[in-house]
């Protein structure tokens, strides 16, 4: 045994369990665990990115031949003749109905969802908040087809009154004009059902974010003399804004892609129906049109036309999410 400074016998002899010097037992704090876990996380990330890219590549490869053969402007035409040559299809109708129904659904669902989340986290007594949260989450468990049937047969019968009031008050504005469609099958009815479907997503995420608000901020606001509402407005909501925006974007993704409920409720329009901006009109969204015709994709060209519509939906969701990400990042900088 030497007595040289900086050298110790522990570094040269095996440890009590028989491992060599400087080896340890390779547990999760060891090098191997680090490599495994890091590799798995990296692999999962790469896999997800790869899947999204592959979906985009698939849609593009199917859609481009049909788009090249399209004889009318894809974005402004309202025709949809994909059976015979010449191929003429355009998504103007689909785009408007999809965007309108999703936007109205978000206008209804986001304030409502944030309100419910605030109630559950800030106002409700402890014995009520957990059951209330579970009940709202239960809305997410209802199958889409059930929403569709309920919307058509139950909600639809009550929409006639609302529609006539809105038409009487705002009928001069193109958005509220009468379009001759029965009140149970309009874009507005679909939007209401979509907002109910989106509500649990918005509520659940907002709830989580509001519960994370630093108690210090809340107490500081109260100590400075703020009322409950002022405390929420100054401490809870600004902290939760990125979370609310994320929740809204996830909800919007669900609303844009919702298929079965839209198919069951919304009345499709016959070819040649004049264009209408109204929310009391019928129509089809991207998802419902593809689903309605999926069984009859006779030729690659026909399938390609529908894939092109799907590609537009994909791009739309992507762009909306990207904008949301930018907004959240900017807010995060100020909130830190």
């Amino acid at each position: 045994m030497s007595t040289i400074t900086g050298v110790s016998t522990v570094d040269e002899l095996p440890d009590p369990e028989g491992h060599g010097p400087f080896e340890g037992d390779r547990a999760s704090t060891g090098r191997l665990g680090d490599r495994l876990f890091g590799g798995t996380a990296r692999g999962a990330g790469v896999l997800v990115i790869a899947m999204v890219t592959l979906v985009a590549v698939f849609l593009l490869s199917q859609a481009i031949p049909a788009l090249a053969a399209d004889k009318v402007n894809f974005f402004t035409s309202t025709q949809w003749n994909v059976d015979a040559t010449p191929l003429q299809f355009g998504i103007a109708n689909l785009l408007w109905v999809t965007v309108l129904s999703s936007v109205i659904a978000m206008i209804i669902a986001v304030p409502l969802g944030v309100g419910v989340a605030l109630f559950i986290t800030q106002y409700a007594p402890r014995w009520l908040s957990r059951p209330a949260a579970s009940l709202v989450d239960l809305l997410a468990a209802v199958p889409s087809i059930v929403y569709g049937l309920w919307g058509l047969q139950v909600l639809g019968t009550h929409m006639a009154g609302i529609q006539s009031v809105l038409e009487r008050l705002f009928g001069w504005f193109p958005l509220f004009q009468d379009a001759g469609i029965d009140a149970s099958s309009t874009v507005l009815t679909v939007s209401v059902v979509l907002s109910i479907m989106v509500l649990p997503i918005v509520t659940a995420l907002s709830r989580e974010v509001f519960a994370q608000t630093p108690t210090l901020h809340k107490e500081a606001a109260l100590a400075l003399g703020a009322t409950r509402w002022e405390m929420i407005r100054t401490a809870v909501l600004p902290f939760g804004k990125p979370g609310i925006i994320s929740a809204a974007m996830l909800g919007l993704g669900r609303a844009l892609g919702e298929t079965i409920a839209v198919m069951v409720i919304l009345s499709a329009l016959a070819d040649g129906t004049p264009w209408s901006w109204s929310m009391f009109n019928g129509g089809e969204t991207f998802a419902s049109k593809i689903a309605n015709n999926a069984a009859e994709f006779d030729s690659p060209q026909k399938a390609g036309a529908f894939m092109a519509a799907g590609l537009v939906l994909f791009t739309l969701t992507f762009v909306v999410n990207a904008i949301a990400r930018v907004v959240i990042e900017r807010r995060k900088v100020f909130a830190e």
Partner: protein
Amino acid sequence: MKLQSRRQLASVTGVALVSTLALAGCGSNNNTTASSTASSSASAAGGSSSSACPTGTLNGEGSTAQKNAIQQVIADYQTTCSGATVNYNATGSGAGVKQFTAGQVDFGGSDSSLKSTPTAGTTGTEQTNADKTCGSPAWNLPMVTGPIAVAYNLKGVPKLVLTPSVTAKIFNGAITTWNDPAIAAINKGVTLPATPIKIFFRSDESGTTDNFTKYLKGAAPSDWPAATGKKWTGKGEGKQASSGVSNAVKSTDGGITYTEWSYAKDDKLGIAQIDNGAGPVVLSGPAVSKAVSAARQTGAGNNIVLKLDYATKVPGAYPILLVTYELVCSKAKSPAKVALLKSFLTTFASTGEQTKLQDIGYAPLPASIQAQVNTAIAALS
């Protein structure tokens, strides 16, 4: 399990309640699944397992219009032949033709026969591609006749007569109210209200639309200039599937649509009598069979492709119908299944089964067509 707090007790009770409710929902399954894999649990019915029955599994796919008919025949067949399993997946005529042409199923179901004209973007025609996959001529065997009812909902009008010309005008928006003089002229003595006509059509592509538009074009070409096809080319609001259009008419006063007879009957809608030129004909099984007998065969030999005469003036014939074909290979790709296929198709085409189909809204094959189908089945190898 010691429950430590009231909260745990509450959550356990909640879970128990929810699971009780969920399990209570699992009542008797009334087999409404599209893929009918009715197993031979009907042995309790005392069905004799005939030793002449072949065993094995048959897979078919295609038309939704014949779904109810084929499910009933499969159930009956599997009662008598307990060693056989027949699966039919109702995914639509387009999917059925595609799967059959790709050789994925033993037989296909389609509302229209295999096309002999090429579709844009594919090589060859459906018929030639199917022949190639089979290695032998592919045959279209008409098996199920589905009457298409012009169903309406009009308060106080239990009986309505329509001619092809008036029907075409209604469905392309030229006639907009029920008390229009054109409708009143063919319905003397009936007080028609001034309700606006609300048309409902199939928003999904369907063989019913195809055959209905073919009828309008065939029987009233000057009043129906639009194209025929699986996609609706008239006016109105689109609803999904036959159930969607029938429900819409049921809940709308003044609604009219074209739908399968069984749906119109189930929803208790008014069914118009069609006057093709030989007097109003009430929709019934024998009336439809008369119209099918008037059809011309355009296929060669055992390939029984029927060209329906929509403008038929045979008295007592109801002209609006669709015929579902079973697509089969004349020389089967797997010889082991030939016996089972022949046996199943023979049962399907038998008079007993065809007559039973009337109860669920189909019409029986007329004797002349039935004889031809039987000849073709016997010639399968």
